């Protein structure tokens, strides 16, 4: 399963819900305001640190760059749009809108 999250964890609980339904081997892709969760040392970075144990986490580069996010929670991988397409191709996707 690929879970995409496009909401800020500081604004609502979408990422928390997503993590509750993630199974081992799933992938979470953060995009749009969702990438704000990837900032290291934030009040919400524990969410990704906890999820890291059971799934892979990606953040979309274009959205990170646009928001000047450089220090990421350790273990968060980055991907570009073509990597995004690859992930969608490889998995069934659920968009946590």
């Amino acid at each position, binding site marked *: 399963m690929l879970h995409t999250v496009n909401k800020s964890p500081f604004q609502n609980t979408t990422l928390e*819900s997503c993590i509750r*339904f993630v*199974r081992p081997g799933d992938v979470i892709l953060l995009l749009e305001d969702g990438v704000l969760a990837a900032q290291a040392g934030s009040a919400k970075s524990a969410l990704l640190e906890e999820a890291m144990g059971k799934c892979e986490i990606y953040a979309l580069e274009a959205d990170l760059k646009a928001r000047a996010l450089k220090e990421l929670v350790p273990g968060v991988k980055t991907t570009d749009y073509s990597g995004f397409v690859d992930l969608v191709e490889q998995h*069934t*996707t*659920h*968009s*946590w*809108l």
Partner: protein
Amino acid sequence: MAEEVKKIMFTVRKAPHGSIYVYEGLEVKLIMAAYDADISVVFMDDGVFAVKQGQDTKPLGIKGFEATYGALVDYEITKVFVDRQSMEERGMTEEDLLVIGEDEDTEEPIKPQVVGSDEIAAMMAEQHNILSF
């Protein structure tokens, strides 16, 4: 060669009435029910408010959808689930859930099934497509 029946899940995570998502999602479910697909619906997060019984939208001047939800079983949409944690966090119990149809033989009302997140995650993993509203 017979094609495999597609397993399609709808997830409803938005509260009703504040946006058009729940209403539009319901329309899509009814349309999809006309096709040969294995449909399931899961209400989670604020989506659980969409299946609370006793919604009166007259004061808002909009058409409600509780009656339409009451016909889901008639549309052969019987796999309807509610996430237990989302429901309990919002102070709701199984008693609060609306009716989605009645049993053909006994005429007993049918309500959505309340299930845990592990069960929902396992069902999600079996789907061909998941549409979120």
